[in-house]
């Protein structure tokens, strides 16, 4: 029996019809709303590719049931900034050319943006710790670290 669920995504109130209210948020964002930012990586909350902000906090949307979202505001990579109006973290990532394949980058940016919001001048070690549960296979870590440091001075 399809259920209608109200969500607030990237500044918009929307209604989605789903068969399973326990479906992870990721599939609504990607398949119902056509967003590309949050991505499927593991479905287990291990890699961070699916990270979105719920009320400003980074969560793994692949293991967040829709029913648990409630009224919390959802922000995805698309809602963080656009090519014309980049968020400082996105801008820093572009400037540092901090990607290879870039599949993990959504999680890196979303995690870093939430982290920097409450840590204005973090040390390298703090940044690394903040990103310790975001995996990258291409080995772009060094650039990502530089990008987050660059963003820290701009946020």
């Amino acid at each position: 029996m399809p259920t209608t669920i109200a969500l607030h995504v990237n500044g918009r109130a929307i209604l989605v019809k789903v068969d399973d209210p326990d479906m992870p948020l990721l599939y609504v964002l990607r398949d119902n709303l056509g967003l590309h930012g949050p991505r499927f990586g593991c479905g287990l909350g291990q890699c961070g590719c699916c990270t979105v902000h719920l009320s400003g906090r980074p969560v793994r949307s692949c293991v967040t049931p829709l029913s648990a979202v409630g009224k919390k505001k959802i922000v995805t990579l698309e809602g963080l900034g656009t090519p014309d109006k980049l968020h400082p973290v996105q801008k820093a990532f572009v400037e540092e050319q901090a990607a290879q394949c870039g599949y993990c980058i959504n999680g890196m940016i979303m995690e870093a943006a939430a982290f920097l919001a409450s840590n204005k001048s973090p040390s390298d070690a703090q940044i690394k710790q903040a990103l310790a549960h975001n995996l990258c296979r291409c080995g772009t870590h060094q650039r990502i670290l530089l990008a987050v440091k660059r963003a820290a001075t701009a946020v």
Partner: protein
Amino acid sequence: MLFTKPSRRDLLKGTGILIVSFSMSSLFKTAFSQSGTPAKTVALDEVDAFLAIDPRGGVTLYSGKVDLGTGIGTALTQIVAEELDVPLARVQVVEGDTALTPAQGKTWGSLSIQNGGVQIRQAAATARRALLQEAAKRLGTPAEDLIVEQGTVRSRSDGKQVTYGELIGGKTFSLKLDKQAPLKDPAKYKIVGQSVPRFDIPGKMTGQFTYMQDFKVPGMLHGRVVRPAAIGATLLSVDESSARDVPGLVKVVRQGNFLGVVAESEWSAILAAQKLKANWSNWEGLPEQSALWEYVRATKANKDDVTSNVGNAEQALEQAPKRLSATYNFAIHTHGSMGPSCAIAEIKDGKLTCWSSSQATHDLRQQLAAMLSMPDTDVRAIYVEGSGCYGRNGHEDAAADAVLLARAVGRPVRVQWMREDEHGWDPKGPPTLMDLQAGLDANGNVIAWYSQLYTPEGAIGNVKLVAAELAGLPHEAGMVPGNVIQNTAIPYAFPNVRTVAHRLAATPLRPSWIRAPGRMQNTFCNESFIDELAAAIGADPLEFRLRYLNDPRGVELLKRLARFAQWQGRTLPKRESGDVATGRGLSYVKYELARTYVGAIADVEVNRKSGEIRVRHFAIVQDCGQIINPDGVKNQIEGNVTQTVSRVLKEEVTFDRSRVTSLNWASYPILTFPEIPDIDIELIDRPTEKPWGVGEPSAAVVPSAISNAVFDAVGVRLRSVPFTPPKVRAAMQTA
């Protein structure tokens, strides 16, 4: 954004363009026939296979080599813009579409620039010469009087000008690619050699980029595969009622041992695959992992490849007053793409279209055609960039899965693997074992080197498709591990050398190539054993290598590395006392003994108590000849180093007698942020030399540099990748 990449759809629409203008006086032919049939050539000897220029002067590059997240799309664009003298922003690239791009070979082996880029450059040079000839005719000026700037040809003497768009816009070159067409003088390069920002990066930072995992086609359904409970198990029965209550389930698809589900939505497909009850036979065909190396050693060798043979190594060994021997091994690794493999297939009017992130769409097309027993010409395979693959991962297999599911339901189907499918079923870097022996004379000179590699047979070709094999459909026989015997031969001039590869008839898991296949394993063994020899005679590892290296570029590289990393000569390991000991290790490779040179110095910390290794720093010096994009090259080196540190310290595929058991990031951990090394890089640019590959070579030196650094720190040799804490502790106990 500096320049944009058009959507795939725009490009596809573009192929059917109807052009009616025709000029008898032009060198160039009207593009495509007037019936509107897309007749674009993909022949490797035709300029039109690679390049098209539209009436507004926009250049389209058709590349058979694809951007796997390495940035070669941008680098190839630089080559074209440079050679044609057009602004970068005016060049767009179409990659890996069997209907549009030439078959330039798989995107592998660090050959995209070295082979693919060089072909493309020659096509652009041929095109440029023809455009100048045509301009000379139009302007009534000798070609020598013409210069090209920003895609406009101008007469130096009278200033008359004509644009590329006016000269050829919409028409074809109809020209054979000329290997003699003059190339631009590298001294005049303005775009090649520059760290041009990658055109894909802004979109990737904002969610605007469309990965294969994001790609959709109209009317598409979602599929998931249900793999056998054991690799070689037979599907005995399926209880379709077990998934019947999943809303939106369209079909349970079974063909032989191939099992999958198709549903209206992705989540329904996932639920259905989880709920579907299938009964598989038992199968325990894998060896005991705890006895893997005994198994490898006992596996029948179908042949021996002798990769180098100088003097008489066996005899010299026998007569040597001092002999050393060691055995090295390297675990099975998975590619571990962050995004599980994904593909879409559509069969319409008897023709198959398949979108995937295959690194070899032209080969995939043949494999899919063979699987369905249909002609190649009825299959179109289109590349869409996906998650990085670092070799032949599961992309092609997901494509075959999508094809079988699409055929079963008569609608387009998208398949994305789940994490356990990727970790469990992508083909693996096979286990590698090497025995090494060396003989020294009374003065400490190396007089003999003899190595024996144990590695699966097979080389160039296509890895068989899982779906084809499970479904009992036509597929390749045999193993395709990649060219894994490269770099068994050594760069050092010893008087007696014999290097042999025993090509094994079997290996536990379906093998394929993973970044620097064989070259990494073989360089690990060779460069660690070289370090053992240096230590045995109390020589500095750098000086020892230089003693036997008679390649000026290699010598220069090592000397620059020593300076760059402030290498202090040493003749004995430091063997620092205390719980945490630090050490430095050096390694060197001339990739395949034929191209890119890399030298590395690693700084490590070894915790004697826990056995934990921290790789603190890597210094890399690389000579890859001409550099197209220095920042792109550095990005590749950083990735190679970090990824390989991960492989060396942590990674090992585990399995029981039936199946892979390391099915996610908890059971197959990779390097995390707090563990990453710092990396410093010095590039040796040689603008007048050939551009060599960079995607793999710097990965090859990493394992041995770490192993040698650990020896420096604590005086023990690590000869088995991964260097896990238990192995380190065990090595220290026996030392």
